[in-house]
């Protein structure tokens, strides 16, 4: 019982740290499933470990006979349950680089080039990146109306969905001009990259012969 309590306490600490990291670095409410994993994950992990550790301290043969799976869980468990938070971002980055050369484009110094040269390259990069982006995330405007036309902001609107500018006073509903319709991600499908080192977002290319 003591083990379980200790584990839950440690888990709470870890979840707290994750909460801080997620909402400070990642931006709030961006991904509900991720938040659930980062905050809930430590508790699940802790309880699992609390169950496994005592079993491990028992005589080896008995443990193996009772729970042969637990040994492997203990080894691969933490990695499998809590992937590095940056993984999805790295995968998206790798896709945009592979398909559209985005990292090359953003890291190259463009000062020495003419607008024409930059324009020429951008056309290809834009086409390819746009295609890759469409494949990875589904985007739709937050507000359905047309930009530069009148729009009503209802009572009880979500401030993360709508940002008010200009002469802001009184109480909703507000009437104003839609200047930017916003973007909402309605689907994410960033390709898995099985068996590859996630931090390599573009391998070096060596031509032989």
């Amino acid at each position, binding site marked *: 019982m003591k083990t379980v309590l200790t584990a839950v306490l440690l888990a709470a600490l870890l979840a707290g740290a994750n909460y801080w990291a997620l909402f400070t670095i990642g931006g709030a409410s961006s991904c509900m499933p991720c938040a659930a994993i980062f905050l809930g994950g430590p508790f699940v992990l802790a309880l699992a470990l609390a169950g496994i550790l005592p079993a491990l301290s028992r005589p080896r043969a008995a443990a193996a006979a009772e729970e042969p799976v637990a040994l492997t869980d203990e080894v691969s468990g933490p990695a499998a349950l809590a992937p590095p938070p940056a993984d999805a971002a790295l995968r998206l980055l790798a896709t945009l680089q592979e398909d559209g050369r985005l990292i*090359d484009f953003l890291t190259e110094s463009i000062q020495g080039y003419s607008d024409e040269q930059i324009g*020429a390259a951008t056309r290809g990069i834009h086409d390819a990146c746009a295609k890759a982006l469409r494949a990875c995330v589904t985007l739709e405007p937050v507000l359905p109306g047309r930009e530069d036309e009148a729009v009503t902001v209802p009572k009880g609107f979500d401030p993360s969905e709508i940002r008010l500018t200009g002469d802001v006073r009184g109480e909703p509903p507000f009437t104003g001009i839609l200047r930017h319709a916003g973007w909402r991600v309605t689907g994410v499908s960033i390709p898995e*990259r099985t*068996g590859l080192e996630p931090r390599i977002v573009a391998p070096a290319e060596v031509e032989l012969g």
Partner: protein
Amino acid sequence: MADARYVVGIDLGTTNCVLAWIDTQAEIDVDAPPVEVLALPQLVKPGVVEARPQLPSFLYLPVAEEMKPESLALPWGMAEHVVGELARARGAEVPTRVVASAKSWLASVGVDPSQPILPWQAPDDVAKLSPVDAAAAYLRHLRAAWDAAMPAPLVEQELYLAVPASFDAAARDLTVRAAEHAGLGGARLIEEPQAAFYAWLADTAGGWRDMVGVGDVVLVCDIGGGTTDLTLVAVGEERGGLVLARRAVGDHILLGGDNMDLTMAHAVRARLTDGGTTLDDWQFRGLVHAARDAKEALLAANAPAEAPVVVLGRSRKVIGGTVRTQIARDEVEATLVDGFFPAVDRDDKPRAARRTGLQEIGLPYASDPAITRHVAGFIGRHRDVAPDGPSAVLFNGGVMRADRFRRRMAEVLSAWRGSQVRVLTGSDPDLAVARGAATYGLARRGRGVRIRGGTARAYYVGVETAMPAVPGMAPPVKALCVAPFGMEEGSAATLPDAEFGLVVGEPAHFRFFGSSVRRTDTPGTVVERWAEGELEELPPLETMLTGDADRTVPVRLEAEVTEVGTLAVYCVSRDGTERWKLEFNVRGADGRP
């Protein structure tokens, strides 16, 4: 598998494979059957699996440590070979380790398609495969994708495998062998242009009866990435209803969209070189892609006057290394429309002598790039089917998506005929063959209209004439018809009069011929002389008679078209008690063992 739940059509294409299916337990409108196309998960990059409707027919053979084994895993586990989009993309970078166009090697090209010969001219460290193995690998991938996604295994379904109409009996045999290697032995064969026609019939939802009439002859013009396949379908009448019959098929023409993309890219490269910019191989591959996109934009209806072509820099300096130019619509018009679809005379024939410099050693690539000339030659050979040429045309294959090509082809056909040739428009030319193959399966169950066809060729064995031996001169050969044109599946033909004496214990060889133009010969017809191209020699047939050695057995020949759609020729003893199947000997480079 007559009671199988799913009827499945497979397009084992030269450049792409597609699988389509119909659930026979669902509600079916026979005029517009609900055909689904299976999403095919495949590696698109190392470690990245994506589901796409097409599986590129490429197979890549990595060197040790080139790719991590775990990065090549598929949703259903590890595959023996890398096939699909990753193989295609990687093959463009490392051409010596990729198997491409395996299907074209199944047609008689003077090498044994069951021997490990691919990748053609690969370095010694590559574990080569046979064209049959490669085709089997694509089919295995389709099978695994199906089994992972569908409630019942693919082997238990009713399968239809599309093959080029130009495939002769030997190539069809090899295709069936590839299917057997993949564990799909029961698959029946259907000709690709016919499948495209079935897809069109289904697209019209019964409306085809108003679009064609009695006496119409439809040219199916199927131009894919690597091959051009031609077929004539005639519309007739029987008991008040319209009937369709496939009347003629063309030769195996290795000419398609890839030739056009390369031609365009070479033209642009030449212009860049004149301007002082040289492209390396890597940039040239990028150029081929960019030129293809530009081509498609410029050949569409309402095309712009010009389209940009951009090849990004190779190193991390993506902007600094970028090469940009543009292709004008007039240039595409002159290079591709006039180059591949010139307005030729109706009596023109493909030119044999000129070489275009765009060929790979090994496969018999067409030396005349003018598709219209190949079509003229084809129609000219079949004037008995359509004296004035076809009255309508159905386009299929990715190339014919281009509005400009369709218009030019229709103009040329109309000029030959002297009146307007109607253009029948099918949907999605990339998926039509697989969809049509499934529709055909349904029609075979009596649900939907069927195109009559039978064998696309008449078949002959060579018989040496009895004459005094002349040194240095082979005795002339006569051709004895064993199977007539248009033999239906499941039927047999016998030659009661002709007998051969075969020696037991020794291999018996027969030279073997096919003809797509001699439509009236019956079993037993002897052809003494034939014009160039009238009869084509196929791989010889051979068998080993077992039994008491040195006995001579009088036999007659019997031909049978199997339910699967392959041709089988047997030697049958006079009393009919013994039967030996003659097998194709594909080793013979020039048709001789």
